[in-house]
C-alpha cells in the first residue's frame, strides 16, 4: 500500500467523508432521468460556480468606489494579466446562467415536475430565479459606466411608482436622494455579499430537496400523480429499476457542463467583456441606457405599455408574475404530468417565449426612440440645392422632423415614413398636421414661422412615387 492511499484511508477513517457523501452521490435515480434532457439544472450550478470563482477574482482588483470603480474596470480590462478574460467570463457566465435558468424552468414546467411532492423544489427554484435576476441587474450596475448610472436612476424611478412607499424605495436604491458616493458601495454589497449569501442558502436547499424527494422521473401520458400513492410508487420503481446517480447519470451532466464552461471561456477569449461606456457622469446627458440583452424585452415593455395604466403594469406586473410562479404548485399539484396531456401548459410556454422574443426583437431597434444620429437629407434626396424645396428639406433636417420621420432611408422610425407622404396628404392636410401635431406628434405651430412652414409643406408635398 503506497503512502497516498494510506493517507487517504487515515483521513477517511477520522472524517468519515466517503461514508457521508458516497451514498448521496450513488443514490438510485429513475433510469429515464439519465438522459440529455436532465442536464440543465446541473449546468446552471456549474455556471454559478464559475460566477463565484470569476467574481472573487474580479474583487481582488475592482475598487467599489463611485469615483474610482470606472478606472479600476479599465485597469482590469486592459492592464492586468488575464483580466480581460476573467471579466469576459463573468459577463458571459451571467448570460449563460440566465439562459440556463430559463431553460431549466421551462423544462420543469412542461414536464410538471413541480407537482407533488416537489412543490418546495419549485418554490425554492422561483426564489433562485428572482435572486439570479437581481444579480444580473446589480452586476450591470457595478460595471459602473454611464449606462450603469442611468439604469440605476431608471430602476429608482420604477420603484418610485409603488404606492405609498415608492419615494422611500427609490431613495433606498439610489442610497440617498441622488446618484453619488453612496450608490455604488450599496450596489456592490448587494452584488457580492447579500444576494450571493442568499443564493448559497437557496441552492443548498434546492439540492437538498432534489435528494430528499428524488429526481422527478420523465413523465408518461396516462400516468397521473396521486399524492396518496406517488411516494410509494416512486420508491418501488427506484428500488427495482433505479441506477446510481454517480456516475451512470452524472456523466452526461459533466459532459454538458464541460461544453457550457468551455463555450463561455472561448467567447470570453474571442469576444471579450462588453465595452465600457463613457464614465459614470450624471451630468453627461448624451446617454442611451439600454440594458444587457436579457433585460431588453423588459426595456421594450416599459416603452410600449399604454401610459394610462403604466404605473399598474410597472408595479403590479412583475409582482403578479412572481406571485403566479410562486403559487403554481398550489394551483395544481396532482394529475397528468406529460406535456402531451397538458396542452395549456405548452400554449403558455409558447406564448411566453413568443411575447419575450417579440419584445426583444423590437427592443433592439427601439423604433420609439428619436434617432439623434440620423444622417441629414442630402441635396440629391431633396431634389434641389436652392429655392423653397431646398429650404424645406433643410427645415426637415434642422427642426427635429428627421429624428422621428424617415425620408428615403434617412431619419428615425418613431413617426410614419414620409418618403411618399405627398401621395397621401395634400398641402392643407400637411399644414394642419405640422401645426397641431396629433397622436404622438408634437405641434410645431409655435416653432415654425410662415416661410419655414410653407417651405416644409412644399418639400413634403414633393415626396411622391415617380
Amino acid at each position, binding site marked *: 500500500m503506497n503512502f497516498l492511499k494510506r493517507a487517504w484511508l487515515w483521513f477517511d477513517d477520522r472524517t468519515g467523508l466517503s461514508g457521508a457523501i458516497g451514498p448521496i452521490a450513488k443514490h438510485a435515480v429513475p433510469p429515464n432521468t439519465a438522459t440529455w434532457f436532465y442536464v440543465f439544472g446541473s449546468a446552471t450550478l456549474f455556471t454559478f460556480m464559475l460566477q463565484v470563482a470569476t467574481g472573487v477574482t474580479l474583487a481582488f482588483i475592482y475598487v467599489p468606489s463611485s469615483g474610482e470603480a470606472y478606472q479600476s474596470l479599465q485597469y482590469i480590462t486592459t492592464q492586468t494579466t488575464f483580466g480581460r478574460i476573467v471579466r469576459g467570463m463573468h459577463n458571459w457566465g451571467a448570460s449563460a446562467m440566465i439562459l440556463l435558468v430559463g431553460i431549466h424552468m421551462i423544462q420543469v414546467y412542461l414536464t410538471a415536475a413541480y407537482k407533488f411532492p416537489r412543490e418546495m423544489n419549485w418554490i425554492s427554484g422561483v426564489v433562485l430565479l428572482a435572486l439570479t435576476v437581481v444579480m444580473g441587474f446589480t452586476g450591470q450596475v457595478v460595471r459602473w459606466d454611464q449606462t450603469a448610472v442611468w439604469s440605476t*436612476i431608471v430602476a429608482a424611478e420604477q420603484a418610485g411608482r409603488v404606492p405609498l412607499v415608492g419615494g422611500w424605495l427609490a431613495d433606498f436604491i439610489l442610497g440617498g*436622494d441622488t446618484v453619488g458616493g*453612496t450608490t455604488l458601495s450599496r450596489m456592490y454589497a448587494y452584488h457580492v455579499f447579500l444576494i450571493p449569501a442568499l443564493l448559497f442558502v437557496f441552492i443548498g436547499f434546492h439540492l437538498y430537496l432534489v435528494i430528499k424527494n428524488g429526481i422527478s422521473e420523465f413523465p408518461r401520458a396516462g400516468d397521473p400523480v396521486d399524492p396518496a400513492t406517488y411516494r410509494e410508487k416512486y420508491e418501488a420503481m427506484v428500488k427495482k429499476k433505479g441506477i446510481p446517480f454517480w456516475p451512470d447519470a452524472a456523466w452526461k451532466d459533466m459532459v454538458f457542463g464541460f461544453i457550457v464552461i468551455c463555450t463561455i471561456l472561448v467567447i470570453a477569449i474571442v469576444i471579450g467583456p462588453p465595452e465600457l461606456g463613457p464614465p459614470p457622469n*450624471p*451630468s453627461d446627458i448624451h*446617454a442611451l441606457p439600454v440594458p444587457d440583452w436579457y433585460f431588453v424585452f423588459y426595456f421594450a415593455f416599459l416603452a410600449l405599455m399604454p401610459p394610462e395604466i403604466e404605473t399598474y403594469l410597472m408595479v403590479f406586473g412583475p409582482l403578479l408574475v412572481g406571485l403566479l410562479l410562486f403559487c403554481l404548485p398550489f394551483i395544481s399539484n396532482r394529475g397528468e404530468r406529460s406535456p402531451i396531456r397538458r396542452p395549456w401548459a405548452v400554449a403558455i410556454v409558447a406564448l411566453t417565449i413568443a411575447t419575450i422574443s417579440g419584445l426583444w426583437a423590437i427592443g433592439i431597434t427601439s423604433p420609439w426612440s428619436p434617432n439623434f444620429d440620423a444622417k441629414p437629407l442630402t441635396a440629391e434626396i431633396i431634389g434641389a440645392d436652392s429655392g423653397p424645396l431646398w429650404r424645406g428639406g433643410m427645415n426637415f433636417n434642422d427642426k427635429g422632423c428627421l429624428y422621428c420621420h424617415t425620408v428615403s432611408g434617412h431619419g428615425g422610425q418613431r413617426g410614419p415614413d414620409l418618403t411618399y407622404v405627398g401621395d397621401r396628404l395634400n398641402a392643407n392636410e400637411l399644414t394642419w398636421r405640422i401645426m397641431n401635431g396629433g397622436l404622438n406628434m408634437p405641434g410645431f405651430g409655435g416653432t415654425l414661422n410662415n416661410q419655414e412652414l410653407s417651405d416644409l409643406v412644399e418639400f413634403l408635398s414633393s415626396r411622391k412615387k415617380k
Partner: protein
Amino acid sequence: MSEKTQTSDCTRRQFFMHVSIALGSIAAVLVGIPIVGSILAPIIKKPEPEWRAVGALESFSVGGGYVKVDYVNTSPLPWAGVTAQSAAWLRRESEDKFIAFSVNCAHLGCPVRWIEGAKLFMCPCHGGVYYEDGSVAAGPPPRGLYQYPVRVNNGQVEILASPIPITTV
C-alpha cells in the same frame, strides 16, 4: 428521568428551551436595530438642498435657447468623483427671470436633450417629448419636466441643487 422539578405547567426542560430562544431573539433584535437602521439611513436622513452657482449673469443671453449647466449635487462625498456631478437645462427668459428644468425625464428618469431647431426636449429611452415650457408634447411621461428654483445672487446665477425628481403616484 428525573422530572421532579416540574411545576404546575412548565418543566425544567421547557424552561431552558424558552430561555434559550428568548435570549437568541433578544440578541438578534438588539444588534438588528443598528444594522437595519444603518442600512435604511439614506431614506431617513435627507441632505438640505443647497444653492450652486452655475455661471455669471452676463454669460446667459436673454431669449436664447436652453443651455445645459453642470453643478455639484446635494451630497458630494469625497470619493464620489464624477458621480457628484448634476445637470439642469437653464434658459434666461428675461433680464432677471430664469427657468431651469431637471434633465431627468418625468417618465423613468432618462436624460432629456434640448433640440434647439425643434424647440423640444426629447428623451432617448422611451420617446418622451416636451415643449419648451416643459409640458408634455408626446410619449409616455405622466407629467411635465420638473422645474428647479433659480436665483441671481451677486451677479451669479444659482440653481437649488435638489434630489433626482422621482415621479410617485
